[in-house]
């Protein structure tokens, strides 16, 4: 096959490259690569850009799959000597950054590859598709190229992208593999034999703090990579997740003699116990590992939140969470209780998604199928709706980052300690379990380890879990302390960045867009949200019948202040008054009319209060305002309202002395209010009747037109009938 000469060239090139600089290596690579590219062009015409982390991970995975025999040396050497001594089997253009790829002579064992792929937890058809696409079927084996392409496709599929060659062009998170531990345990029962997925180790270096400790446990960590993979498809890059797992597993193997930062390790160790014990059994490990990984990911989240997941659509950002929590509160003030189905249905229907889609989203998010949404379920559902509105296709299953227990832990993020054993909630434990006592965890882990050696049955797993649960339960007297804290946390979280909710992340805007139908964006409210609480009350009353539960009270302190300052300017500049109001009108025009009328009354009340001294300016202002409404009656009701107010005020003003007598203005105000109310009511009624008249007149004319047409048709038909009749009579 073509691979033969390429392989020979590859190895020759490898030798040559080892000795020389990159340029000759590149030349050799080009020579070897071109021949191989000819072979590869058929099935993999697309360049395969690999980042450094991906490169290392893939090479490790590949080495692992190939390494039935003692290729540990080659794999370790491959990991260590990253730059030289390898030939690119692909054309130079295909390689991202001088990434090392084992020579084409190395092929991955099909069974191991198959196991690895199955561990990615993708459906079988997808895996078939991937193997076909990467070309392994065509060439008959899994060479490095095919393997890397396949890994990339797996990553793409797990991210929810379609399985196509084009998918691998973009930046993808690493593929995640579940339950590899099974294979490794079975095959590599002896730790010495374990060739790690040393891809963990590079990621270790990417981690901020505790990785220095990891170096110690490197050897033992070789076993742990098998634990690292995570199950659920769309998730953010998992490197950080793998590391803690590997570390913890390594600790287990080494008998846990290395104790570093207590909570961190304790968690991992404890989690690891669960992993290995369950490892030899197919169904349980995915759940456990998913839970493990979830908890660890949550634990890592505080460290990673800054620099990761920019493109993960299924991860809820802080601001989004705040927004969701606020929306939840608007529907259900008690954060620990849940929203009933009908309430949620009304709320989500406003998002203007179709009912089948909403039904599907509900199905995804209501995991306990009780017809009600708890806070995490609600956030997940809301997030899915937002994502759908932004065009993301709905996932087949609930992403891991949207699972309720994950979200629950995420909500408790400030209490980092509690993040850990939330994973156990999967095994029917309550959320928020926190191991405080390292010793107890150690004990249980020792127990677990001892049981590891014995062949474990499913029942044993349950027993172990029960044991662990009980031990952990003992270890957690302070559990409850977290719970009261959490609502406070949420409150503080909510209150603190309230102003941030208007930030400019695209999803924020999308959310605001989504919420446009249910809730008018708070900004226009600013025009109404004056210092007077009266306004707010009226605004709320207006909103409630309009069934917009999402409408939150406008930000309490900030907006009124600028507006109040604006008011003082209004006196000097007439237009400035009317301008802030009309822009605020259109969105809620129909709804806010009536309250605005009263609002305006109150505003006018304020006006005299504020503008007592420059009363003359107001007088001059009011005639101007009076004119405006006359010219544009329908669109500027505010101004019109100003008119009667101002007229009334004007009547009063001359009678009032120039002294700023606020109390005197007040007696006038109520009287004026009533009469103006009546006037306004009449005016609105008149306006409505006029509009109705116009509409009916139009309708009438249209119907007349139709009637004429029908008449004509009838005449034509009658003519035809007459023409035909003489014939039949005869």
């Amino acid at each position, binding site marked *: 096959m073509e691979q033969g000469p390429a392989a020979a060239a590859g190895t020759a090139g490898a030798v040559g490259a080892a000795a020389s600089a990159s340029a000759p290596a590149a030349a050799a690579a080009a020579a070897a690569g071109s021949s191989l590219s000819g072979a590869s062009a058929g099935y993999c015409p697309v360049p395969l850009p690999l980042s450094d982390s991906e490169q290392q991970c893939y090479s490790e995975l590949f080495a692992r799959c190939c390494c039935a025999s003692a290729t540990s040396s080659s794999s370790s050497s491959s990991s260590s000597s990253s730059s030289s001594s390898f030939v690119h089997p692909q054309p130079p253009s295909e390689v991202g950054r001088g990434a090392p790829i084992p020579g084409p002579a190395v092929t991955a064992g099909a069974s191991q590859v198959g196991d690895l792929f199955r561990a990615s937890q993708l459906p079988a058809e997808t895996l078939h598709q991937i193997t076909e696409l990467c070309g392994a079927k065509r060439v008959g084996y899994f060479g490095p190229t095919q393997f890397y392409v396949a890994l990339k496709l797996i990553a793409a599929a797990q991210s929810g992208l379609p399985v196509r060659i084009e998918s691998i062009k973009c930046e993808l998170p690493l593929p995640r593999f579940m339950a590899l531990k099974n294979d490794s345990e079975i095959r590599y029962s002896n730790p010495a034999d374990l060739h790690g997925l040393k891809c963990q180790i590079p990621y270790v270096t990417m981690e901020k703090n505790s990785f220095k400790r990891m170096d110690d446990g490197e050897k033992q960590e070789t076993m742990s990579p098998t634990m690292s993979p995570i199950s659920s498809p769309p998730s953010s890059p998992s490197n950080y997740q793998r590391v803690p797992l590997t570390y913890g597993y390594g600790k287990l193997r080494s008998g846990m003699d290395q104790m570093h930062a207590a909570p961190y390790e304790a968690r991992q160790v404890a989690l690891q116990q669960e992993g290995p014990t369950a490892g030899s059994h197919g169904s349980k490990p995915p759940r456990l590992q998913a839970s493990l990984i979830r908890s660890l990911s949550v634990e890592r989240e505080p460290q990673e939140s800054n620099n990761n997941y920019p493109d993960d659509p299924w991860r809820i950002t802080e601001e989004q969470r705040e927004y969701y929590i606020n929306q939840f509160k608007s529907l259900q003030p008690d954060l620990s209780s849940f929203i009933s*189905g009908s309430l949620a249905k009304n709320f989500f229907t406003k998002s203007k998604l179709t009912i089948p889609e909403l039904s*599907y989203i*509900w199905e995804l998010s209501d995991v306990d*199928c009780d*017809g009600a949404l708890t806070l995490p379920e609600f956030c997940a559902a809301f997030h899915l709706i937002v994502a759908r509105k932004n065009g993301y296709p709905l996932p087949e299953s609930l992403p891991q980052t949207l699972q309720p227990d994950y979200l629950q832990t995420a909500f408790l993020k400030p209490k980092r300690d509690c993040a850990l054993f939330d994973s156990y909630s999967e095994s029917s434990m309550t959320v928020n379990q926190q191991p405080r006592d390292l010793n107890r965890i150690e004990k249980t882990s020792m127990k677990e380890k001892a049981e590891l050696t014995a062949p474990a049955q499913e029942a044993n797993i349950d027993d172990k879990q029960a044991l662990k649960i009980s031990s952990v339960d003992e270890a957690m007297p302070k559990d409850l302390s977290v719970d009261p804290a959490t609502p406070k946390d949420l409150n503080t979280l909510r209150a603190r960045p309230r102003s941030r909710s208007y930030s400019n992340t695209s999803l924020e805007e999308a959310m605001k867009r989504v919420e446009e139908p249910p809730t008018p964006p708070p900004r226009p409210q600013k025009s109404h949200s004056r210092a007077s609480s009266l306004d707010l009350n009226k605004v709320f009353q207006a909103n409630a019948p309009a069934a917009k539960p999402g409408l939150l009270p406008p930000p309490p302190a900030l907006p009124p202040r600028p507006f109040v300052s604006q008011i003082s300017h209004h006196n000097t500049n007439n237009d400035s008054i009317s301008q802030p109001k009309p822009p605020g009108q259109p969105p809620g025009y129909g709804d806010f009319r009536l309250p605005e009328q009263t609002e305006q009354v109150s505003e006018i009340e304020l006006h005299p209060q504020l503008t007592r001294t420059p009363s003359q300016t107001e007088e001059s202002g009011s005639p101007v305002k009076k004119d405006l409404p006359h010219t544009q009656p329908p669109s500027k009701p505010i101004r019109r309202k100003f008119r009667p107010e101002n007229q009334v005020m004007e009547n009063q003003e001359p009678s009032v002395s120039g002294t700023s007598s606020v109390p005197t203005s007040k007696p006038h105000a109520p009287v004026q209010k009533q009469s103006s109310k009546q006037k306004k009511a009449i005016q609105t009624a008149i306006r409505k009747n006029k509009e109705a008249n116009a509409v009916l007149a139009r309708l009438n004319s249209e119907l007349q037109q139709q009637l004429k047409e029908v008449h004509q048709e009838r005449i034509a038909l009658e003519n035809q009938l007459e023409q035909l009749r003489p014939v039949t009579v005869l």
Partner: protein
Amino acid sequence: MAVCIAVIAKENYPLYIRSIPAEHELKFHYTVHTSLDVVDEKVSAMGKALVDQRELYLGLLYPTEDYKVYGYVTNSKVKFVMVVDSSNTALRDNEIRSMFRKLHNSYTDVMCNPFYNPGDRIHSRAFDNMVTSMMVQVC
């Protein structure tokens, strides 16, 4: 093996009907339809006393030479009908009961969805998956 599973509403129209070999779909539809009579018969016979005493699982409705038809009624008069291939003799009553129980649970999950209006056709993917697993696994 379950070749056809149907969910019939109270008013005797199908909410969900699915059969495995596609070519006999019409035949199974007809079978299910005719079996409704038997269901009504059993329900009226049993339910004279008190509804509580009536068991939800109706058992074998009637056998033909190719297949057997089992029935199950919920308290809200929603009927589940399952057509099972006679060649699979290993299927015991208990297994059929457990299958109906699973169906019932999935159906209640569907009902819990506030976006589902009772009386609509069932489009829930979770329900579909469950039915698929039942039809395939028993195969």
